[in-house]
């Protein structure tokens, strides 16, 4: 029996965490995502399901609590916004290195530095290339609606456990703060028993001790571990690409955009179609793995691509690596906390179309 609610994106994440049977949340307040912790506290998630909620003394503590709790094989999450996520980079690198499953939510705000609390998408590089040290990746999911804020929580946990990898939900101040209808999934019982072989649960006589670490003093062993990680990332690139296409079939020009920008581009697409322009929208849902092949496959048929992000242009690099420059691609975006409007985006597309019509493709 679906339960329809009007919720903020942040609240939807929190409610979904409870319903997905999450075992623990550790976090520190920061705008624009403090509602996640607040909602969990107001809802008394602990009473509802036994889920543990703890306000940590800092983001540094929070990510390391996640690291510890995730060692037990339980479903653990944290959330923050840009500066707080930067503080977590060492911890995230550790979690990735130790191959622990967990869910991290970044409701991005304008940077750099303290920046502004308004929405932004300028943490793309940090999220997909690894803001921490070493060769590691996260699975990065980019919700574009409050519904997806809810749906990506169980999806995120599934992927996290399937691959023993931290999953990042890369959201932004628009999606976190807006309210929309959400179709809430049913409560999933917390799986308090864990039989994963790797977890820390106390060494019993019938198994050797389990150790979780990201250290290897021997470089050759460390390289082996890295090969294993790279193989895993390859597998994820093969199996877990997700995206959505809107009016792409006959499109000569497409927007590529994720999250809030995708919603804005969707409106711009509609406005463009109203004007008779053959415009479509390709929305990557997974930013890592990035839908490289899918974009490459389409690139031959297109006249140009407009990448729209609330940033100075980050995803555009992945698009160009995907298209191998076979088709013209440009970036448009407002940033530093400014949200582009549908008509601005449309105008940028019209300019791009003009420039293609005037010159060579």
């Amino acid at each position, binding site marked *: 029996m679906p339960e*329809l609610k*009007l919720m903020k994106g942040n609240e939807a994440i929190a409610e979904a965490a409870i319903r997905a049977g999450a075992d623990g949340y550790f976090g520190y307040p920061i*705008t*624009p995502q403090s509602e996640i912790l607040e909602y969990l506290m107001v809802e008394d998630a602990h009473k509802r399901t036994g889920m543990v909620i703890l306000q940590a003394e800092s983001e540094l503590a929070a990510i390391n609590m996640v690291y510890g709790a995730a060692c037990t094989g339980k479903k653990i999450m944290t959330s923050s916004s840009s500066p707080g996520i930067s503080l977590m980079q060492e911890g995230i690198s550790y979690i990735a290195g130790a191959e622990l499953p967990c869910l991290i939510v970044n409701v991005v705000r304008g940077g750099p530095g303290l920046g502004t*609390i*308004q929405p932004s998408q300028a943490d793309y590089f940090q999220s997909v290339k690894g803001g921490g040290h070493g060769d590691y990746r996260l699975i990065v999911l980019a919700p574009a609606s409050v519904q997806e804020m809810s749906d990506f929580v169980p999806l995120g946990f599934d992927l996290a456990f399937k691959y023993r990898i931290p999953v990042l939900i890369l959201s932004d*101040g*628009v999606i976190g*703060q*807006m*309210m*929309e*209808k959400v179709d809430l999934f049913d409560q999933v019982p917390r799986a308090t028993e864990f039989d994963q072989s790797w977890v820390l649960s106390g060494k019993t006589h019938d198994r050797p001790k389990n150790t979780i670490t990201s250290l290897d003093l021997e470089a050759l062993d460390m390289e082996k571990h890295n090969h294993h990680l790279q193989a895993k990332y390859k597998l994820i690139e093969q199996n877990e690409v997700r995206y959505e296409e809107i009016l792409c079939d006959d499109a000569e020009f497409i927007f590529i955009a994720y999250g*809030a920008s995708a*919603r*804005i581009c*969707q*409106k*711009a*697409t*509609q406005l463009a179609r109203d004007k008779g322009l053959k415009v479509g929208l390709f929305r990557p849902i997974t930013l890592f793995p990035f839908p490289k092949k899918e974009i490459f496959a389409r690139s031959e048929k297109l006249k140009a691509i407009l990448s729209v992000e609330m940033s100075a242009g980050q995803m555009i690099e992945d698009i160009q690596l995907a298209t191998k420059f076979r088709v013209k691609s440009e970036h448009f975006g407002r940033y530093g906390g400014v*949200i*582009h*409007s*549908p*008509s*601005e985006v449309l105008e940028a597309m019209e300019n791009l179309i003009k420039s293609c019509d005037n010159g060579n493709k």
Partner: protein
Amino acid sequence: MTEEIIIAGFGGQGVLSMGKILAYSGMMQDMEVSWMPSYGPEMRGGTANVTVILSTDRINSPILNEFDTAIILNQQSLDKFEPLIKPGGILLYDNSGITRFPGRKDIKIYCVEATEEASRMSMVKTFNMIVLGAYLKIQPFVKLENVLKGIAKSLPPRHHHTIPMNNDAIIRGMEIVTQENK
């Protein structure tokens, strides 16, 4: 049908909750809805606004750069949003504290003296409900009964006793709204 609304005023005037009630009301009627606030640090005295979309279709962008209707509660917001109303659209404003009045000819302009009325009724807290009533009179997309349900949804149970008072305020707002340019 799609109605794209901006509500804007001072922080503390109930702008966000007015939007929330509208969104809830729309949801009660099976509409698609979205509510996107401007948000800021918890400091008083700044401006606040919220974009509400009610639609029978799937909503794409929650961020808009032009609006069918603007509900305006202070001068700054009037200056900012009057130009963003679509031709043929609606501007509803409370005239208290307004010194530079709206001047567009291609939109319908309504005024509701909600601040004054609220202090007349000695119900300062229902100021925003008077404005909401005015809006409902002009754009009756959502039914009053659903609005009341929306209020119930958006208020914590301990405040449910204020619903009748809000109802009165809405009705008063419906009564006192006037169109300025006919």
